[in-house]
């Protein structure tokens, strides 16, 4: 009753009826304008994914600058102001330019195929959502070359750093965030309407694949909080340039109010970057454990609970701002409550694997690494949630370690798992498995060398966002930097694998690709034809 959509061999014939690809293959537009003018969800998905990958490499290069400077104590490679610009823009790019567009790209490719829809609900708007992004990031990156430099106040742009003490580029930062927000909101509206309105007959709510469920809830979060971010940057703009005092106590405002508004956006934002990852892992684990997902319904309810709770935990980012004690207590307990639905998910994944016929293909390797390493990130989050000890951890490398475990080994590992899982369906060819395994093992080892020692230096008191540090942290920082360079280089292996896959090198694959894979997207031919499900399939 509450199992995810599983197609039986009985339904397999329907693929031929519903996919009228032959006469369409001739009409795929050619050249650059295909990509600029496209309304096809698969084209737009590809654009999003490539954009995210390029931004991942650009943001990664900035991380390399940071790690090069921190290789030794003292100032040797870059100016402190430039260091600050690197930490700021690295964060902004990875959040808004890499992780979010990658998930939107996956949503574009997969949601219509998973629910049996001919395309996204609003295909032209879909194109607009994508093409705003390269322009928005051109502005952000361009501002680095302005006189006085780019934004240097951290990706969280706390007032008064972003108001009283910021440079001119703040105005461009504000407007580029505005148009990124427009892009995200339109993308989210598209996803939500597609899921509400475009499901094939018989694709009832509780038959939807979990990736679709998690994206539905993510889209709701996006529409709810991106406008709040727009409000926050607008107030920063008027405070800095037009003499308002939202974040200035001298005019009756409060710098702490900035943090409240920002984190009201910011905390749901971090779940925007992890809920689709939960969906991906929930698709991959059952395939390679060859068992249906354990506790499908509880996964759906857990996702919804996490999303609702995300609106009432924001001030756990602000325990040291001098809030009244009752507020600190409330936000501490609300935050800890989140570990319950998150724990449900982790236990369900483990229970799915229990006594399954496991095999360890590349997507599964990344999914397993996700479960272990994301849980480490979750547990350090639980430590940070404890108000009294957060006074020690706050603004140290412990926080950096925490959110890199959940974002790199969480969100980004899940994106890599997703690419390896679905890329054969997209291209019709198996990727280079040997190279992919090299990519996995190099990434796995280096990412832990990179982020695990950050826990130690953080607990010992090394502050974040500072280009210099005390001598006693030197050894650990060298390890961290070495891990960082190794992780960065490992991603070039990934780039190679993806380029090979896009050039259709490799063995042709079957329609189902993985022998335990179930769901509508595995019923259509490989590679997926340009148009799928122009007449909706019937899901039994």
């Amino acid at each position, binding site marked *: 009753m509450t199992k995810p959509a599983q197609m039986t061999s009985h339904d397999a014939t329907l693929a031929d009826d519903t996919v009228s690809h032959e006469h369409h293959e001739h009409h795929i537009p050619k050249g650059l*304008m295909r990509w600029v*003018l*496209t309304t096809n969800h698969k084209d737009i998905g590809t654009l999003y994914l490539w954009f995210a990958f390029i931004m991942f490499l650009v943001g990664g290069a900035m991380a390399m600058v940071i790690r090069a400077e921190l290789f030794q104590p003292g100032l040797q490679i870059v100016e402190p102001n430039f260091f600050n610009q690197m930490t700021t823009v690295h964060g902004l790019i990875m959040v808004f330019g890499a992780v979010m567009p990658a998930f939107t790209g996956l949503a574009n490719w997969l949601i219509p195929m998973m629910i049996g829809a001919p395309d996204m609900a609003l295909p032209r708007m879909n194109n607009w959502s994508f093409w705003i992004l390269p322009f928005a990031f051109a502005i952000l990156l361009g501002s680095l070359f302005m006189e006085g430099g780019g934004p240097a106040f951290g990706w969280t742009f706390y007032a008064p750093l972003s108001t009283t003490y910021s440079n001119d580029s703040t105005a461009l930062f504000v407007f580029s965030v505005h148009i990124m927000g427009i892009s995200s*909101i339109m993308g989210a509206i598209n996803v939500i309407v597609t899921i509400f309105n475009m499901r094939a*007959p018989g694709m009832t709510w509780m038959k939807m694949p979990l990736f679709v469920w998690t994206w539905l809830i993510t889209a709701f979060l996006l529409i709810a909080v991106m406008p709040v971010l727009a409000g926050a940057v607008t107030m920063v703009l008027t405070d800095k340039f037009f003499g308002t005092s939202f974040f200035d106590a001298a005019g009756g405002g409060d710098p702490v109010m900035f943090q409240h508004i920002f984190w009201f956006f910011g905390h749901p934002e971090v779940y925007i970057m992890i809920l689709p990852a939960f969906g991906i892992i929930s698709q991959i684990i059952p395939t390679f454990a060859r068992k249906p997902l354990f506790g499908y319904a509880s996964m759906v309810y857990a996702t919804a609970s996490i999303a609702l709770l995300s609106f009432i935990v924001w001030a756990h980012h602000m325990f040291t701002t001098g809030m009244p004690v009752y507020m600190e207590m409330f936000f501490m307990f609300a935050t800890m409550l989140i570990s319950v639905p998150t724990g449900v998910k982790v236990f369900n994944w483990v229970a799915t694997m229990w006594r399954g016929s496991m095999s360890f293909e590349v997507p599964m390797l990344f999914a397993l690494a996700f479960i272990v390493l994301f849980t480490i990130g979750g547990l350090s989050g639980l430590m940070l949630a404890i108000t009294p000890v957060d006074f020690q951890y706050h603004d140290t490398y412990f926080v950096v370690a925490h959110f890199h475990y959940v974002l790199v080994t969480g969100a980004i590992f899940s994106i890599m798992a997703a690419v390896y899982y679905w890329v054969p369906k997209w291209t019709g060819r198996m990727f280079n498995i040997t190279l992919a395994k090299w990519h996995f093992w190099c990434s796995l080892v280096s990412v832990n060398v990179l982020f695990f020692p950050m826990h130690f230096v953080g607990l010992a008191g090394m502050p974040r966002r500072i280009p210099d540090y005390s001598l006693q942290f030197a050894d650990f920082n060298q390890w961290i930097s070495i891990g960082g360079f190794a992780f960065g280089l490992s991603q070039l292996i990934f780039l190679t694998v993806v380029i090979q896959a896009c050039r259709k090198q490799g063995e042709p694959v079957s329609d189902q690709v993985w022998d335990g894979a179930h769901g509508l997207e595995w019923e259509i031919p490989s590679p997926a034809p340009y148009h799928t499900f122009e007449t909706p399939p019937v899901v039994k």
Partner: protein
Amino acid sequence: MQQPYEKYYVPAQSPWPIVGAVALFLIAVGAGNMVIDTTKEADGYGSLILGAGIVALLVMLVGWFKNQIDESMSGLYSAQLGRSYRQGMSWFIFSEVMFFGAFFGALFYARLISVPWLGGASNNEMTNTVLWPQFQAMWPLLSTPNGTTTQQMGPAGLPTINTIILLISSVTLHFAHVGLEQNKRKQLTWMLGLTILLGCTFLTLQVEEYIHAYKELGLTLQSGIYGNTFFMLTGFHGMHVTLGTLILMVLFGRIVKGHFTPDNHFAFQAGSWYWHFVDVVWVMLFLFVYIL
């Protein structure tokens, strides 16, 4: 196989989204540079780039909507597509609610937390003593901690008249909608025309009120948190009324040309939802900015 749905219309390639993306790029670059130029009182190309962006955006809107209207009039749209548009519009309005939510949040924060705390409330006595001992918490905040003074914009007079105007406009728009649904085109045209007129009157009076605030009350955008929240909330609301009025004007033009039927009028419905939303925001504003 039975087809429970009509074929869903997936448009072919379209030039408008990329024009829109370029337009937003120009607007962002232009607005950013213009802001920098004005604060430095320097001459720059900011306003020119911004103007080019707005022109491009208008071209995009006209072209895109023309495509939409042509497709709709030639019967390409199914009921399912109509649902997509309606749901899309509802979620867009929800995003607008959250945008205003951020500014209402700032208003409530200032009224309940930051101003009282600066005055020593809760356990902040030392804040008051050390920072601005002469400061007294009050709302509206007519005298800020650093000594900027201003006067209150009360609810009497223009704001009350404007509230009544907007409320009536929601009613007239509703009757226009009823006219459309019952195919009473005359009622539709008159009532919609009246709504547009009321919208324009509201905007004119709002400009009057701003002049009154700046010239006579000394209430400006720089008058501390009271002026900040007052002008940002009413200003963004005014921008939304302007947009809403423009939407209604476009609808009026289409109605004169004979567009829309009793069962097929998504654009009208979307415009009307938007107008009602803007109206509700004003009621909230009137309550929390002017009266309470």
